[in-house]
């Protein structure tokens, strides 16, 4: 089946079965390798991408269900100010151990903080509860996300 998917701002033509999860379209067809395979059953969050800005588990989203949705992956998240701030905070706080879960963590945090800049540390961490970090980097993920949340809250307050 021929599909057109919009990924990171570009329309991409693919000819694949509609049942193929978006994760494998990204990885094996489009060569976007930052989105990771962890469980395949929407349990770990390693495969998180944005569809129209919302965090979605790409392992469980069939290609045919993407439709007109605009897909953003970790490779393009720096274009979002929140995404770029999270990436910088991840480096600053030396967050990763093995690093395998981290693109999913950043994508989830980015969607949550973009949707609600006043989320704060507790809210952001709650949004991240579905993302497993097997290495247990949770304290630093919390610190990094809190630093960004604090900046955003400050910004939101200044505007208000």
């Amino acid at each position: 089946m021929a599909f057109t998917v919009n990924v990171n701002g570009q329309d991409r033509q693919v000819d694949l079965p509609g049942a193929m999860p978006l994760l494998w379209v990204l990885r094996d067809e489009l060569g976007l390798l930052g989105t990771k395979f962890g469980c395949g059953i929407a349990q770990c969050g390693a495969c998180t991408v944005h569809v129209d800005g919302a965090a979605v588990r790409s392992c469980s989203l069939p290609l045919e269900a993407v439709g007109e949705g605009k897909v953003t992956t970790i490779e393009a998240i720096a274009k979002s100010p929140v995404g770029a701030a999270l990436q910088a905070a991840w480096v600053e706080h030396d967050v990763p151990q093995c690093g395998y879960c981290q693109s999913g963590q950043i994508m989830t945090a980015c969607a949550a903080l973009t949707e609600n800049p006043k989320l704060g540390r507790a809210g952001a961490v709650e949004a991240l509860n579905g993302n497993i970090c097997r290495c247990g980097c949770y304290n630093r993920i919390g610190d990094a996300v809190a630093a960004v949340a604090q900046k955003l809250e400050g910004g939101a307050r200044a505007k208000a």
Partner: protein
Amino acid sequence: MPRPDTIDRRSFLRVGALAGGGLALNLGFAADLFAAEIGKGALPSAGMLNAFVSIAPDGLVTIVSKNPEIGQGISTSLPMIIAEELDADWDRVVITRAQANQALYGPQFAGGSLSTPTNWLPMRRAGATARDLLVRAAAAEWGVPAAELSTAKGVISHAASGRSTTYGAVASAAAKLTPLPAEQIKLKDPARFSIIGKPMRQVATPGIVRGEPMFGLDTRLPGMLFAVYARSPVIGAKLKRAELDAVKAKPGVRHAFPVQGNGNPMELVDGVAILATHWWLARDASDALVAEWDETIGAGHSSTTYAEKAAPLLKAVPAKVVRQDGDLAAARGSAAKRVQAEYHYPFLHHMPMEPQNCTALYENGKFTLWAPTQAPQNGIDGIVKALGVAESDITVNITRIGGGFGRRLINDTMVQAAAIAKGVPGTPVQLIVTREDDTMHGFYRPGGWHAYEALLDGKGKVTGFANHLVGFGTGGKPVRSGEINAQEFPAGLVDNLLIGQTNIETMIPTGPMRAPFSNGICFASQSFLDEVALASGRDLPTLLLEMLGEPRQLPSARPGQRGFDTGRARGVIEKVVATSGWKQRPKARGKTGYGFAFYFCHQGYSAQVVEVRVDQGKISVPRVWTATDVGSHIINTSGAQHQVRGSVIDGIGQALGQAMTFENGKAVETNFDAIQMARHEITPGRIEVDFVISDNPPTGLGEPALPPVIPALTNAIFAATGKRIRSLPIRLDETAA
């Protein structure tokens, strides 16, 4: 196992010039010293290969990261050691990844917390040797004695004349000099360390947050196909018949063929290879596979059957006495109190975040692999044995690894990938194991049961102690990572002691998991000792300090390793008692409780205090305090804090939500829905990480901080609720008080 402090004596360095000018240093090891560690005979001798440390004319220092990176931070910490002695500018150090070549690099192995102790001195000498060459080159150029020169951040200075130059400027001249023999190389006074002991960020992080490809799964080669390896759910079952027509008719499928194994799950079991243009298409096609397996191997191997067998064995005398001191029966006669309890912990799977995978190409009779492996040599050996190829025909590229925890010390996936690639010469193949298959075909942390007995005299002193492990065996021997040893705590500290083991025969493959053996037994022993402490009218740290007595070293469990040092044990216990405010803790039963535990493993000592909250059957862990002694230096303080916190969180996750069970040789739990990993919500808000610095060789930190957190948690639950947790995972409702 070689003794870490003898290894570097026979290491040597070779010097050469870089192609475009500059200095190249090759590190060679007398590989036979490591033969015991990697389980094979002599390795090919070192030749002049790629530079290990190189300094370009522009001053850029490139260091090869030679050990597998599984998230333990070794690709940052080993280069830090070299850069320290080299007096390099850390901001101008670039780190690249090595191929598997133990003849050239020495052990390339991530396990047993061994990377740090085996490399500490060789890496320091490598850096110091390079520095010495550069200094002598500058001294010759200026016609001054080398002793008058000083170095800092890649710059050489002569104070008397005010001259200075850079490493890059003298690198080409240094390449023409002969390096001093190892014994003449002067190492830095640790008081002058400026890189070691600092919090350095992991070098790979900027790439990680951008989603750059670096893991095994990210390997891409032109024309590559993706594979699944369909196996029976029963571990080690034999393939009788496979119908492949329906599979081959599925979209994207290019090949499907049976692979005959050699019956060894560590190497190659029978399976069906399915290769397609996209991995999901191969996985999807596997649903169409009709195969008949001989699954008799698994008959009767069920968790319930194991538990039924264990119950009477726990009451009986051990089949094997591992250690006997004094006279336990006589001590029983004179004891004022006798405490007895039985404990249990389940099988566990490592569940690393990156599923098992390996990319392989078979071309012109030679194999090239791209493997996320903790022990490349183990995979090479497996391929040699299972496929009958020469070791010299195998090249392994080590990728970054999305978590190991010991699972990737065993490299069945490398052998499978090679076997599949052999079926399609010239076509690269990426084998990705589904999460379900990964979980169902593991090398599990073996479960076990313990029957304990402790004897107390009228003053509450422990006069007798017995620990009987009912564990698992195969062919009359304990399974891998399932053996109790003669030094198990509190051996050597109690006059009348019995350690014994009885095995239940199993076909479930087992293997090392983060802090092997210790990860289970520490829970049981330190929880039981908490019961003993209560019976003796003391708290656990007080009881342990009394049992430890004067600082001294006990004999080692393994020849060549340092034995248990009671002084170091005291050090971490006293430290965490102080940092946690243990003596002032609220002791009344209620929602909050505090628990303590201590353990020694992998040459590291760790004592921990857990604050638990139990509210309407829900457990949370607000705070954990840790004190750990891993020797004279913490190389990267940021990485070290990460390892300890990760261990604590890992342990809490295991204790609360993890168990593998089996039914007739088949794993029941297969994915993260049934195996609860620690998540943000259970992460302690504060995990205090303190170190006790002792005058001992530095050792690794991936393991020693894990075991004690589990009994500290269960002891805290007892303090809060009066419920004694004697079985993992923790089930509050099922636990008798």
